[in-house]
Each structure stands twice: as structure tokens, then as C-alpha cells.
């Protein structure tokens, strides 16, 4: 038995910790946990409900627009307002651009260093030395695409700036719509930048993921788990939001069904919060941090759907849509992410054509004095939910459940591990000094602890506690 601790796991949006126990070359026990705590929901209390759009974007630098979108949906839900026709499309385009940025940067910048040897120059060195399987020529070609992807990822954020003012943390995703008038100069600029990105995806990224999948084909057999997956739906088709381009759905053992919010409960058995012994409802639960709790090991709570640990992300969305159902593994997650990038890029070209210059983009509305609302969307990494309660015109309660909270959740009362932990069990580890299998597996989830570790319910006292062991 050997214990391997990777602290920090770098090349994720924010570092986190993975601890595995290896016996006879395979992972037999695992704990994934996070290292920092900010208490974002506590900070949001008593602020102007409109400010939540901009403030919650600050939860995460790489998926800021998804938080803006969820916050906008929550306030629209509470205030009973819908964006104008253009407003919906513009918001989709901003979030779409951010998603392209995220997926391109994740594939090349964050995860490719696990498979491709970099140049002999910091910060590429030091690095692991083993299991780089590409030929020298193929490695060099992929590296050139890595450099080009740096430019393309940057360009995707320029798209976001065109319609959203700046990136990250765009200003133009608001409850009530968006703010930049879709005039022809903006549309044509956006279109030709988008086209460059789509050309790159088509001609470089898609071939690269196939090269990777062929060279590292064994990773279709690593990181497996049952197809238990969830998404809240991404990109409303119109301003009424009756349908989304990526529909909400739940896959249990691979079978897709409708999502209901009631079965979502959070289990606190192994999280550093006082536990009432039964899973809690996110609408009403009260959370009291308790770092001394016996057996607990993570700040992340364990959200469960009808008691099931479900994972989110591009693979979940593709599975629910029916686009990709080959399997659930490290390489399937990567493949689905790249294919989703291509699809979203193409959808965005269509949305541009649907814009109606001259028509309104924003609908003013009054902030209700007392109201409740939920904002649910697919985000880069999976299902994202913001829950909001307004009292006396101010935020009285704000709750965020992020994709990484689903993916990186700890065990629950029944001993069921979180999706990432479940995927890690049984993973072969050839060399405990260079546990590349672990690195590749956890990064296939595109984890983001910045998103996962702020879960706290306003009103509960925050005690002294420690973040990580």
C-alpha cells in the first residue's frame, strides 16, 4: 500500500488536492479535496440583487460568464421579466465565446502537457519524464498547435469583449438582457473572428484529439464509471426559454430522463459541516462549518440526485443530447469536450444571423421587494444553479451549486464516492513518483476548485477552521 498525495494539482483553474492509496498497482482508496475558502454567498448578503450578476462572475475567472448567466436567470425568475429577442441571443453569444475560450484553453493549455512534451524552458520545466508516447514529429506538431491555441483562446475572449465589454467578467450579461447594439460593424467583426476560431477547431483541434485518442487509446478504459450524469440545459433557444440548444436532462445508467429539482439534496457526512444525519434540501438547509468533525475531509458538500452521484460537463451534455454515447472515461470526456467546442462554434455562426439590428437588447424592470428565484444553466463544467431570495429589495439568501461541487464531491452517508473519486478507483498507477494516470484522469473533468469551495449558507456563523490536511 502506498499513499500518493498531489498537492497542488496545477493546471486547473484553481489548485486542489488529490490523495490516493495504491495497492498492487491500482488505486483502492481516494480523496479529492479543496484548499481554500472564501464564503461568497455570505459576501452577497444584503446587497442589491442586480449586483449579483457582476459579483458572482468573480467566483471563477475562466467561466465568469456562466455565473453571470445563472445570476441573470435567477433574478429574471424572481422579478418575472424576460429579456428581449436580441438580448437572449447576445447573452448566448457571450457565454458561447467564453465556452470556446474555456474548452480550447482546457484542451491545449491545461491538459495537453499531460500527453505532450513541452520545450526546455520554464514554466514547461520541470515536468514528468515518462509516458510521452507521440513521435518526435507528432509531438512537435501538437506543440505548434498548442502555441496557436494560445492565440485562438485569446481571440475567443476578444469575441466576448466585443459584445460583453471585457473578458473575463463581462458587463453585458444582465437580468433583462444584454447591452451592446448588434450593428453591422459589430456583427461582421464578430463573424470573421469567430470564423478564425472555427477554422482552428476544424483543422487543428479535431485532428489533434483524434491523434491523442489513437495514441492513448487505453484511456478509454481508465476513469470509467456508469453513465450517471446531469445538466440543467445550455443556451435558451429564444427569449421565452421553453427549449435550450443543449436540453436539460438526467442520465441514469445511460438512460436519459427529465430533470426535476426536488430530488437534489446535499449530503454532509464527509464534509466539514455539522450534520443532521439526513441529506439537506438546498432551498432550506442551514450549514454550520465544523472543521473538527470526525471523518470529514472536504469543504465541498456532496450534492446527490435521488441519492446518486452524477457528473456534469460536455460529456454529460452530449450524452443527454444524444450526440456522443461511446462510453464514460478519461478520453471520452476529452473527446466530448472537443466535439462540443466544434458544435458551439457552428451554432454561434447561426445565432449571429438571427440577430435583428435596430431592435431592443435590454428590458428595464423593477426589483421586487420580496421574491424568490432559481437560475439554472449548463456551464463549461456541468450543471450550475444559483438560488436567490429577495427581502426588502435586498439579497436575503444566495446559494450557488457549481458543476465542480457535483464532480469533485466527497463520499456520502452510504459510502458512495463522488464522481471523480469513483472514476479514480481501480485506476492503474505504473510509477508512484510520476502518477500521470491520476493527473490525466482528474483533469479530464476540467475541475475548478475556485467554483467548488465557496459553498456556505448565509446566516450561519463561520467558525475557526482549517482548509486542508
Amino acid at each position, binding site marked *: 500500500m502506498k499513499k500518493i498525495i498531489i498537492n497542488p494539482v496545477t493546471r486547473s483553474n484553481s489548485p486542489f488536492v488529490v490523495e490516493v492509496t495504491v495497492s498492487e498497482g491500482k488505486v483502492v482508496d481516494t480523496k479529492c479535496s479543496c484548499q481554500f*475558502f472564501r464564503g461568497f454567498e455570505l459576501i452577497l448578503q444584503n446587497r442589491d440583487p442586480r449586483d449579483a450578476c457582476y459579483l458572482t462572475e468573480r467566483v471563477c475567472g475562466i467561466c465568469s460568464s456562466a455565473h453571470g448567466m445563472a445570476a441573470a436567470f435567477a433574478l429574471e425568475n424572481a422579478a418575472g421579466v424576460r429579456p428581449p429577442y436580441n438580448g437572449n441571443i447576445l447573452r448566448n453569444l457571450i457565454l458561447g465565446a467564453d465556452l470556446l475560450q474555456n474548452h480550447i*484553453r482546457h484542451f491545449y493549455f491545461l491538459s495537453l502537457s499531460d500527453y505532450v512534451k513541452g520545450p526546455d524552458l520554464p*514554466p514547461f520545466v520541470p515536468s*514528468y519524464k515518462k509516458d510521452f508516447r507521440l513521435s518526435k514529429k507528432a509531438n512537435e506538431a501538437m506543440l505548434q498547435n498548442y502555441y496557436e491555441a*494560445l492565440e485562438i483562446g485569446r481571440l475567443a475572449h476578444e469575441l466576448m469583449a466585443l459584445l460583453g465589454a471585457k473578458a473575463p467578467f463581462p458587463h453585458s450579461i444582465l437580468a433583462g438582457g444584454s447591452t451592446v447594439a448588434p450593428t453591422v460593424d459589430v456583427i461582421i467583426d464578430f463573424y470573421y473572428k469567430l470564423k478564425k476560431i472555427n477554422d482552428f477547431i476544424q483543422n487543428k483541434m479535431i485532428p489533434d484529439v483524434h491523434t491523442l485518442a489513437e495514441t492513448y487509446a487505453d484511456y478509454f478504459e481508465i476513469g470509467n464509471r456508469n453513465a450517471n450524469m446531469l445538466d440543467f440545459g445550455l443556451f435558451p433557444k429564444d427569449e421565452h426559454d421553453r427549449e435550450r440548444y443543449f436540453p436539460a436532462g438526467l442520465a441514469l445508467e445511460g438512460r436519459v430522463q427529465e430533470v426535476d429539482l426536488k430530488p437534489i439534496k446535499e449530503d454532509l457526512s464527509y464534509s466539514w459541516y455539522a450534520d443532521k444525519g439526513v441529506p439537506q434540501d438546498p432551498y432550506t438547509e442551514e450549514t454550520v462549518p465544523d472543521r473538527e468533525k470526525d471523518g470529514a475531509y472536504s469543504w465541498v458538500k456532496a450534492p446527490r440526485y435521488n441519492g446518486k452521484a452524477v457528473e456534469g460537463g460536455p460529456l454529460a451534455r452530449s450524452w443527454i443530447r444524444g450526440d456522443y454515447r461511446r462510453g464514460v472515461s478519461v478520453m471520452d470526456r476529452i473527446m466530448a469536450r472537443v466535439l462540443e467546442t466544434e458544435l458551439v462554434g457552428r451554432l454561434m455562426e447561426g445565432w449571429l444571423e438571427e440577430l435583428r439590428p435596430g431592435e431592443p437588447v435590454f428590458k428595464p424592470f423593477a426589483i421586487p421587494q420580496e421574491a424568490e428565484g432559481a437560475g439554472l444553466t449548463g456551464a463549461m463544467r456541468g450543471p450550475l444553479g444559483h438560488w436567490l431570495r429577495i427581502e426588502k429589495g435586498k439579497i436575503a439568501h444566495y446559494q450557488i451549486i457549481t458543476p465542480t461541487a457535483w464532480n469533485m464531491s466527497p463520499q456520502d452517508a452510504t459510502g458512495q464516492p463522488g464522481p471523480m473519486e469513483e472514476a479514480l478507483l481501480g485506476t492503474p498507477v505504473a510509477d508512484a513518483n510520476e502518477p500521470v494516470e491520476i*493527473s490525466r484522469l482528474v483533469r479530464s473533468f476540467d475541475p475548478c476548485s475556485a467554483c467548488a469551495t465557496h459553498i456556505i449558507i448565509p446566516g450561519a456563523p463561520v467558525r475557526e477552521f482549517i482548509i486542508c490536511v
Partner: protein
Amino acid sequence: MISRNKFSRVFQKHGSHSGVTARLGTSLLSKGKRNRLPVIWLGTNTCAGDSISLLNSLDPGYRAIISDLIDLRYYHFGMPAEGDKSTGVLEDTLAERPGEYVLIVEGTIPTRSNGLYCVIGNRRGKPFTALDAVQELGAAARYVVAVGTCASFGGPYAAHPNPSDGKAVHKVLDRQVINVPGCPAHPDWIVGTLAHLVWYGEPELDEYNRPTLFYGETIHNLCQRRHYFDSGIFSAHPGEPWCMYKAGCKGPVTFADCPYRQWNGEHLNWPVKANTPCIGCVSPEFPDHTEPFFEHLPDIHLPQVTVNANRVGAVTGVLTAIGIGGHLVASIIKGRLPKTLKKGFSPAKPGIEILQTTPAQILVDSIKKMLKKKR
């Protein structure tokens, strides 16, 4: 900023008088290339937004930055190494290049529970806190640069009630820290500050240790829509193409060059151009005192005179200048704005000069007299 004298001294050092520009230009560049400054980019309690902003730099792009400008040794967002292999780089740099490297910090430094609210790795089997890392690495660094508003001033993660007792870098280090605020910091502000350090040394800093090159003037004074303000034409809500003052713009009290520079690397847009208010994200007061984001700066009510944007918007341009100028200055007289915001209106700064030459000054004087009489 570099003075003309210093600039020519730098040039004279590097070449003869003939063909001076071409030769010196390249020698500066190659000097930079040869002696790339070792850099540690330490993410503490952060969302990695400034790491992303670094990647959003156009010229130079990330590839040129790491090969031509700096020797980026530690960068959690992009380095292949992980676990002890990555944090080992911190100890190696500290041991090998003390007094030479630049420490860049992104994020607040939580101080609660001795810093255990943010742990950046393991050291000899124990948690290596961000607080320890910043203090140890900061003490031996040649320069310390706080990138982003969190590291510079506390920002959103240190907002009320500051659950992690997060602090700005300069609050935990007993030395000068160059602050490059912004949420995120603009790619040009980050790369520009680094280039200044590499080529010319420390840039000119203001009283908040921000490079005056980027933070020397208010958004309001640089704003393309300033004439709408002066003419009293206001947007009532986001999405309208006029002055965003009434929709909550904090441009009058925010020091940054966004209107000239624009976002991101390609300089395409910025919040007011996108018909939204500036939220003052570079300010030491962000976000607690620049909120509510969509409400305008506080109104002022005095005997016989009530001035606010709603009223002045209805009258002529001259009255507008009187009204709003008067209201802001009167707010300062009454101590309504946080102390740090007053900076924007102290007579030594450009912000006030416009007021001094307009009828607003007359109103200010009358308000002052009125207040004196009352006392």
C-alpha cells in the same frame, strides 16, 4: 513612467550617437532577452482571472512573454509540474536567485487561522499557507507586484464580512509592493508593468503604489461620452448609448485608462462603450463602496439647493456642470464619500481643474460659505 532625461540616459548607455534609435531599441530588447527576470506568479485566494488576463495579452503574447520578457518559473495555471515538484520550484528560486526574482501575487492573502484558509501546497508534510509563501518569498524578492484588485487592495474576496480575513499583499509584507489593480487587471497593465521593470526598473507610482502610466487619470476625464455628461444627456438604464452616470457609472471616482486603452488585448471595447456603468473595479473601495453598481454616486441635499443627476439632466449644459460638479464636491465637503475617493477631487489632481474653470466652482464656494454660516 520614465522621464525624458532618464530615457535618453538609458539610450546613451547602450549605443553611439549615430543611428541611435535603431541600435538602442534592439539593444534594450536583447538586454531584456539575455537577462530575463526570474518571475514567480503565485496564485493565492483567487479565481485565476488575472492569469487568464495574462493569456489575453496580444503583443507580446504568452509565448513571447515567457521566452523574451520574463523567466516564468512558477505559474500554477500553466506549469506541467504538480505537487511537490511544482512547489519545489519556489524553494529553488528562493535559494538560487534571492534578491533577483519578481514575486507576482494574484489573490487575497487569508489571515484567519494563521492563513490556513488558503494552502498552496505541502511543505515537509505540513500545509504551506499562502500567507507563509508571500511573506517568505516577498522578503527576498527584488520586486513584489500585486496583480488584480484582490492582491492590491482586498477586492471582492475581502468584501464585507470578509469571511476569510483576506488581506491585500501590502498588508502582510513590510516592504514596497507595486499594485496593478483591476478585476481583472488589463493585460497591458500587467505586461506593461513587467516590461518597465525589465527595461527601465521601477515605474513612477502614485500614492497607492499604482503605476501612474496606467492609473494617473479618472475614467470620467478620459471618457468618450464626457460630452453627454456635460450636456446633461444620460442613459436611464444599461443598454442606452449616452452618459452612464445615472445608471451607476463610477468613472468620476475611478483612476484607470480604460476609455483610451479598451479591452482586451485588441482594444475593442470597455464597459461604458458597451452601454454599461464602470463599476470602479480598480479602486481600493471595490466592491463595498462602489456598490450598488447600478445606482449613481450619492446625492446631496442642502438648504435651497438639491443637486443630483436627475435634476441636472433636465436643464442646460452649464447647469449640468454646476449641478453634478457641485454635488460631488459638496459630498466631499460633507464627508459623505469614503476618504480614499476624495483623492479624485483633491485640487492637486486633474479631476478638479475642470471644476475650477466652470461655474461649478462658484456653486462650491457658495456651498462652503453656507456651511460656514450654519456652523
